[in-house]
């Protein structure tokens, strides 16, 4: 990525400690991270290592115990429609149709503009013909695309994705990765993507942030210097993947 791009998100010395029944558990410790505008960053680590906690803190759903998170130079104090969090497919509203879900965040727009955007994003994620369908009638992959479309419809400048494709079958997952890259290349949002899948991280990200076991620190940040579309049998791809695999091994003793 061009180094001239400005910093979008900065995490400064962030720690998070959960208190429960008088016991406190350190989840994140001294996290420092800068994400540039338009960058695609993957947070990689095993389940339970605290990467979702970091994502929640970035999105404003929880405030760090110490340290500070800034977006565009402003301290994050809560969730904001300019930065949308995508919760696997569980986040779509089952009482709204596909149209209703995509239009959910557009309540401030005039009706015509709202309808134009709904139609645009229905087309973008390939849900034509399902405008009036309710989520229980959709497959897992369709619900996932619906949630991404709902997020994109409000034209946020950042997307937080929490293992968004974890619950999908492997073929749908491949298709969704390609879709996400296509959307990212078209719209140039800043994307923070949490995953425990090394291949997924190397296929998608500009940079992969490898997180250590709890309390999570940043083990290493790996630049993925391969252009899209990425050849997953190329020597450089395998080299980067194996390097990350080794880092994970160091961090988690596997």
């Amino acid at each position, binding site marked *: 990525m061009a180094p001239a791009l400005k910093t979008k998100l900065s995490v400064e010395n962030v720690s998070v400690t959960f208190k429960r029944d008088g016991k406190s558990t350190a989840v994140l410790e001294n996290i420092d991270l800068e994400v540039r505008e338009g960058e695609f960053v993957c947070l990689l680590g095993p389940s339970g290592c605290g990467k979702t906690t970091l994502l929640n803190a970035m999105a404003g759903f929880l405030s760090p115990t110490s340290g500070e998170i800034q977006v565009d130079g402003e301290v994050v104090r809560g*969730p904001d429609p300019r930065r949308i*969090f995508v*919760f696997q497919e*569980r986040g779509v509203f*089952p*009482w709204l149709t596909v149209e209703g879900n995509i239009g*959910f965040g557009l309540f401030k727009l005039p009706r015509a503009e709202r309808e134009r955007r709904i139609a645009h994003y229905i087309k973008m994620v390939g849900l034509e013909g399902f405008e009036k369908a*309710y*989520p229980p009638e959709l497959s897992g992959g369709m619900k996932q695309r619906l949630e991404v479309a709902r997020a994109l419809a409000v034209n946020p400048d950042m997307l937080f994705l929490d293992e968004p494709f974890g619950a999908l079958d492997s073929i749908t997952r491949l298709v969704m990765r390609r879709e996400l890259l296509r959307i990212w290349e078209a719209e140039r949002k800043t994307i923070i993507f949490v995953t425990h899948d090394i291949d997924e991280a190397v296929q998608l990200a500009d940079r992969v942030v490898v997180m250590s076991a709890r309390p999570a620190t940043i083990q290493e940040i790996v630049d993925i210097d391969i252009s899209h579309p990425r050849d997953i049998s190329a020597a450089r791809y395998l080299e980067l993947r194996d390097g990350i695999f080794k880092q994970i091994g160091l961090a988690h003793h596997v």
Partner: protein
Amino acid sequence: MNRRAWIRPLLFIAVLLILWEIAARRQTAHLLPGPWETAGGIADLVRHGLLLKYVVASLFRVTWGFLLAAVLAVPLGLTIGWYRRAEMAFNPIIQILRPISPLAWIPIAILWFGVGDVAAIFLIFLGSFLPLLLTAINAARSVPAVYVNAGRNFGLGPARLVYRVLYPAVVPQLIIGLRITLGIAWLVVVAAEMIAVNSGLGFLIIDARNAGNRYDLVVAGMVIIGVIGLLLDTGMRSLEKVKSFRWSYSED
């Protein structure tokens, strides 16, 4: 339901009616009127214009008692369920009041309101209030955090969050609670009318016995209560079929 699905229960009812008629005709002491006699009782009630009058009287009380309870219990319950501390404060008193049958309040209802509609409505209100309150508390408590977070993420203020996320998220559970509670209200009205008023289906039953041992009218009243209860339940069930309400029954 399709036509074929109706046939089986109707046939079964017909068989039961025939058996009942046979049994009633063979009895030596007159312990129970048969269906034919009961039908005659219903015809009598229609002829005297009492059937419609009593049905309307009972439905009037149920409607008011139930609606008043719903209007107060649902918002209160949702609020209590939403705030964990409120729930902790309210829970003991709810658990103490809950095992008290609404019928135990009959003497107090009459003391406060005299014999009449208000006393009966008050009893139905009492019988409906706690079940609805508990339903609403549970419904609010079980709204998945992910919906609330998504709503906040899209910039919804408190009022919009209630109206566009919390309310639709609790509706399916509320409908079930309303349906069950309407059944309870219909049970309570009959009992309340036996003591607290001079009209309605409960009054019909107790009056038919006291004023001349007209057991055909007693059973006629019971049959009418059953049929109306079925209609009320069917009406509430049809709400569950609304698509935007139905999600929680169809998923998982």
